[in-house]
């Protein structure tokens, strides 16, 4: 008992175990990695939580990726992801252990779950962080985007605890799986007084939709009004097909019916994060560029070298968008023939 009390007095950084899309979305592992770095700086332990039913595989994973302690609530009654139930559990655990920092992956679930936890604890929460650091006073400095990524804000929670953040997937690199890692697993039974969930899940179907494809695509070929016409715009589809990518469109293009609403890349549409983005005839209005901040490598084609899009690009091609698209198609066909 003494050992456990000793541990309780030690500071801890918690990571919420969000495992629903484990193979595609490894944000929990990424956060364990960042938590490990930060924990070293403030002398804290790294803890993870796992709620659900038959979730042992994740417990092992989290330990292998850096968690010192994993709190597990494994019960058939909580097998479905439920924001309210999981939030109640999280609050119940946090109140017992008083972690210094709680990190949650900025998945759709996490971004609904974390605000409720923070509100119930009357503490601060920073949304969709792209950076986490510790300052000289030991405070967690959370960097969050605003205005579609056009501005970054550094936010701290000076007095209240825990300091909470949701963190955008892909910001941090996970620690390689360590088979030799050991950790403490604390299995807790479902508290009796847990409130009944007031939102009922009727059905949940795993979807692989067009919007997912665009958002998950490694290559996106995006076109703007500079393509000139519907006929020319269709050439982008051919290029995308050759590259195994998806076609995106700007707002004027969607309004002109060259592309469907589901292809809209922008603040009111999809946010994309491809490895390579090819932007054809796009001027670079903020409502569009805000949605491409996750692109690794941008090739922009525009006749106007001064277009905003050209400045954001890694490679700015000063040329006619359609002709360049056609030349790329031709060249790719040659390359891919072998």
């Amino acid at each position, binding site marked *: 008992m003494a050992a456990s009390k000793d541990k309780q007095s030690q500071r801890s950084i918690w990571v919420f175990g969000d495992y629903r899309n484990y193979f595609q979305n490894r944000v929990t592992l990424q956060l364990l990695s960042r938590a490990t770095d930060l924990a070293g700086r403030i002398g804290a332990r790294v803890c993870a939580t796992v709620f659900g039913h038959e979730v042992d595989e994740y417990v092992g994973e989290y330990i292998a990726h850096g968690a010192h302690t994993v709190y597990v609530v494994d019960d058939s009654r909580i097998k479905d992801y439920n924001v309210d139930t999981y939030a109640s559990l999280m609050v119940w655990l946090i109140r017992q252990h008083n972690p210094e920092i709680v990190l949650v992956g900025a998945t759709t679930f996490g971004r609904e779950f974390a605000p409720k936890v923070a509100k119930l604890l009357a503490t601060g*929460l920073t949304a969709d962080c792209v950076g986490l650091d510790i300052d000289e006073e030991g405070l967690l400095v959370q960097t969050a985007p605003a205005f579609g990524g056009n501005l970054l804000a550094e936010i701290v929670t000076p007095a209240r605890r825990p300091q909470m953040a949701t963190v955008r997937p892909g910001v941090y690199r996970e620690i390689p799986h360590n088979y030799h890692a050991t950790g403490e697993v604390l299995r807790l039974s479902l508290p009796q007084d847990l409130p009944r969930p007031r*939102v009922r*899940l*009727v059905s*949940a*179907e795993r*979807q692989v939709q067009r919007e997912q494809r665009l958002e998950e695509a490694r290559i996106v070929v995006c076109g703007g009004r500079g393509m000139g016409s519907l006929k020319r715009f269709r050439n982008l589809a051919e290029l995308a097909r050759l590259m195994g990518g998806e076609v995106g469109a700007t707002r004027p293009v969607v309004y002109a019916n060259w592309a469907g609403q589901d292809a809209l890349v922008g603040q009111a549409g999809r946010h994309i994060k491809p490895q390579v983005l090819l932007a054809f005839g796009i001027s670079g209005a903020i409502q569009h560029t805000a949605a491409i901040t996750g692109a690794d490598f941008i090739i922009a084609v525009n006749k106007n070298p001064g277009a905003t899009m050209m400045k954001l690009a890694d490679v700015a091609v000063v040329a006619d968008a359609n002709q360049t698209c056609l030349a790329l198609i031709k*060249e790719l066909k040659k390359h891919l023939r072998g």
Partner: protein
Amino acid sequence: MNLVVCIKQVPAVSELPWDPQSGTLKRNLAEGMMNPACRHALEAALRLKEIHGGYITAISMGPPAAAEILHEALALGADKAVLLSDPKLAGGDTLATSYTLGRAIYKLCPDFDLVLCGCHTSDSETAQVGPQLCVELDIPGVANVEHLQVRGRTLIMRRLADNFLETLEMDLPGLVTVTTKQYLPRYASLGGLNEAFQSSEVRTLTAADLDLDGDKVGVAGSATRIRAVYAPQAAKENVVLKGAVKDIVEELFNRFGDRIAGAIGKDLNGRQ
């Protein structure tokens, strides 16, 4: 149905004037507009009202100029518009904002059936106020809803969350945050706008009117502090290619072929 829609005025992003050197926002220059997701939430409320009848109260919190979007809401079909405007409320984080909105809703329409918010704002983008308002009001709620249907006292909702197409239900009263995927907003008619300014009223309430606890609103009631705001470094090395299209494309493959091939996942040297 007794519907409450929370709307926010945000700077029109298409012309966001900010100083790249200091990274500060010249807010006084930025034109305000109704946050896009809030517009969709209002549209969802209008359609519910069309089907089930009812009464829509639009609530916003912000400077006096935010009355603009409330007039717009009236023109679009809201029945009542209330602006919570007080210097004491300024600078609040989502914890303080959800407290303020929650108290206002209890004061103004305690018998509400459904509160609708936009799923996130285009300025601060936290997406936190809706879920936190649920907690403040102690009602069930669902974020990022794409489609709503009312059956008796039950609300059936559809949404896409982390690759899952979910159908959820809850008993009213409840709260939803609405995405921009469905509920394409209508335009306000010019006659509607004219009337909204002539014969309708936007009520302005202060912190005192709402009996708010001064320690829970504005900066004082916020758990977080903004330490710095800056523009991200656009430190990209920018290669400019010009000339004949054929040469450009060739150079593109020579210099960046690896990158492209990596993304395609195929070897691009088939030509040899």
